[in-house]
């Protein structure tokens, strides 16, 4: 019996699940590429409804982490699955419109397999992620890009409203619906929540894809304040996403491009504080470069302003400048509650820019 033959997660086609869904076909997507746990993906239907099923694949873990105790792996992955499910249900219960929604979830038991249990999540079916809609040449699909970014900003704001920080926002985690009209934030597998402990919360390390991480994490700097760290990270990732939409490069790459190689995170052996002034210099060069990727001056100025305060490389000085000013008490101490990383300003600004662009570039 081959590995896949003895793998319940790979054997769902044609099956009618307990909650009425029928598994119609497998989506040939790489294992592990869709989220925080290794999964096998399927298209499922229920009447007129079409859904996207992510089945937890224990077998993949045993193959990948040979030698590790089986109980440990089962425990770890079950926790990861439960965590994502709980977050998704929290989003569903709060009716978050710009977060990829879970429709259903459950667990199927397939007799005859070494591990018969297949826990799964069913999502609304998307048209794919935003990368398949991308064109980075100047002045192409500007209105669409602004609309999509607006949707994502709304999604992040909604998530923050229910105490969830996404932490892994990147192009592959922005999903497209209704032929591109709607964009939603997907994959909460690496998210963090102030009220639900995450299995991947490893001392404050960056939980998402490090190739998109805010630069401070690449120099092993971790802000001790959980809420501050999580919100400032999402803000950076969003700014970086704006940069990607228009230039095809993320902010981390663009900073690296403008940074002297001796200070690059792959070489630097000193502290973050020893390098952050040079990151600031590279960052401003990156902003200038980003602006040059947009022909319309008004738009490039406005977006650069947003990116500048979203992606500032020193986390304490990240966020809207006015809000940073207001986040300090008169004696210089930090206020406990601050809206330094609030997305409302960004949502409003992107809405205006989208409307203008829709008029201007159509």
């Amino acid at each position, binding site marked *: 019996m081959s590995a896949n033959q003895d793998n319940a997660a790979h054997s769902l086609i044609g099956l009618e699940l307990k909650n009425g869904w029928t598994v119609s076909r497998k989506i040939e997507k790489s294992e592990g590429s869709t989220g925080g746990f290794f999964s096998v993906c399927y298209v499922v239907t229920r009447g007129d409804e079409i859904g996207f099923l992510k089945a937890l694949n224990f077998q993949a873990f045993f193959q990948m982490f040979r030698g590790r105790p089986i109980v440990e792996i089962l425990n770890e992955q079950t926790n990861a699955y439960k965590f994502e499910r709980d977050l998704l249900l929290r989003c569903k219960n709060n009716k978050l419109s710009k977060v990829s929604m879970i429709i259903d979830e459950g667990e199927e038991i397939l007799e005859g397999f070494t591990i018969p249990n297949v826990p799964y999540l069913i999502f609304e079916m998307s048209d794919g992620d935003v990368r398949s809609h991308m064109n*980075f040449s100047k002045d192409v699909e500007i209105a669409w890009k602004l609309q999509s970014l607006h949707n994502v900003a709304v999604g992040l704001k909604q998530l923050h409203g229910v105490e969830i920080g996404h932490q892994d926002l990147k192009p592959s985690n922005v999903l497209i619906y209704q032929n591109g009209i709607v964009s939603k934030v997907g994959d909460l597998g690496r998210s963090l929540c102030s009220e639900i402990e995450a299995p991947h919360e490893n001392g404050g390390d960056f939980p998402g894809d490090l*190739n998109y991480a805010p630069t401070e994490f690449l120099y092993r700097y971790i802000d001790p304040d959980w809420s501050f760290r999580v919100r400032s990270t999402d803000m950076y990732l969003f700014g970086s996403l704006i940069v990607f939409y228009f230039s095809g490069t993320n902010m981390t790459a663009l900073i690296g491009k403008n940074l002297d190689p001796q200070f690059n995170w792959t070489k630097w052996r000193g502290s973050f504080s020893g390098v952050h002034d040079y990151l600031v210099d590279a960052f401003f060069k990156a902003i200038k470069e980003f602006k040059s990727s947009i022909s319309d001056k008004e738009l490039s100025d406005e977006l650069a302003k947003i990116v500048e305060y979203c992606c500032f490389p020193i986390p304490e000085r990240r966020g809207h400048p006015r809000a940073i000013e207001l986040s300090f008490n008169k004696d210089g101490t930090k206020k406990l509650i601050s809206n330094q990383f609030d997305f409302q300003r960004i949502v409003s600004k992107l809405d205006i820019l989208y409307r203008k662009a829709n008029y201007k570039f159509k």
Partner: protein
Amino acid sequence: MAVIYEIKERRVIPNWRDFKRTLQIGELSQTNKFGNPIELNINRSIEDWKQDKNIGIAADLINSAFVSGINNFEVKEAIGFIKSEQEKASSSLLELIKLIEIDSSNPSILSKNSLLEIDVDTVTDFQAFINNKSFHKVINKTKNRSKNELRNPVIWTDLARLYTMRGHEHQAEKAILTALQLAPNNRFVLRSATRFFIHNEKFDKALYYLRKADCLKEDPWLISAHIATSSIMGRFSPFIKDGKRILESGNFSDYEITELSSSLGTLEFKDGSFKKAKELFEKSMRMPNDNSLAQLEWVSKDEQRLQINPFQFDKVINPFEARALELYERGDWNGAFYNSIKWFLDMPFSKRPALMGSYIAGSLLKDKKAAIIFCQVGLQANPCDPTLLNNMVYNLATSNNDQLLDNYVNQMMDVDMKDLPNESKITFQATLGLVALRKGDIETGMNLYKLAIQNATNIKNDYLKNLALANFAMELINLNSIEQDLYIDLVRNMKISEKHKDLELFRSEILEKLKNKSRFI
């Protein structure tokens, strides 16, 4: 008379270049190991690329490859894909690809030892550079950048340097204070600020900001600056112990500790501990920079046991000060002059290269035009410097340039003599004596020269006395004064130290002139 007016004691004060060149010279690198760099992987992006090939996924993979420094088959494939769909790619993405292809992580190795904003080979080019109207554009551009990048300490520091080059001390101070506020612990900012404050004789401020830096005790480049600044003020830095600890720790490269070793070596040398000083200077020469090399060259002038040849250190970038000092000592006036030009171009706010260049050009090479240019550029950055004004007046007077002479004499007369050191007073007296003689006021001129000679004798400065004697004798010969024989005899019998080859030249010129004159009688 013109003078070099060499500082009495050279200290290892940080040299101040723009950020770009400071980076290239390597003063900002850090090999001290706090931890290993982070390791990244690009597996997810590769898997996505294998499943689906479009410009968005290719860009995603390229970004991950660049950020992680990983380049493999799939990355090359994605690069090829983007190149084949260039119409959908941005210029930033294409540039990123270029950097991945040439492996940007290999720092470029400088193939020559000269790293200047602009290099020149002739005095005319030098003048063109100095008069360059585009300099104002550079200042304006940097000023605009600083307004747009309010939180960028690097740009504020570069702006302060540009202002300093033009002698705008007030604006420069505002800019450097902004940089210090933004980056109170940054080595580039702190070293630049130290040089700025010392340039403007605000030594306390230099020490204040260095002492405030959290990283001072662990940074050899900053401790060296603190020791050197304290030493100028006649104090002992409380961080000497930390400096010694750092040298013994072995945690830093030879290059990183070159200035610190040199600073500590200078202290030991001053205290008369030759053995310790020698050890420290040897350490500083394991991998010297321009500053430590110039320091040892300077120290070696007075200490035969510490002789070095700066030309042997061919890996040092911008070794112009050391070379100018060495060539001057050898009596190679041309070589010393051109190295002074490059030294000034490297540090276009410093008065020492301007003084040296103007003295060599005007007094030794008899190129008055070049000397005047040097004084002009030196005065741009140091508008009230008495020695530069003195050299300017001397060169204008000896080139019979009456048009400009009165203007500079007036400026010179405005200098408050009370505040000047004795050496400067003597120089002023001799130069004003020269001006009076050239303007026909013989009595005043002769009195002033005699006063200068007497005062130099009083303070036992043989070099200045002999310099004044030689200059006076030359003027007396020109005037065919009845007193000339007395002073020619004094010049003939001058005891000249081997290191003062300039005096030797003056004496031979006077005797030659006398010989030629006697042929016509």
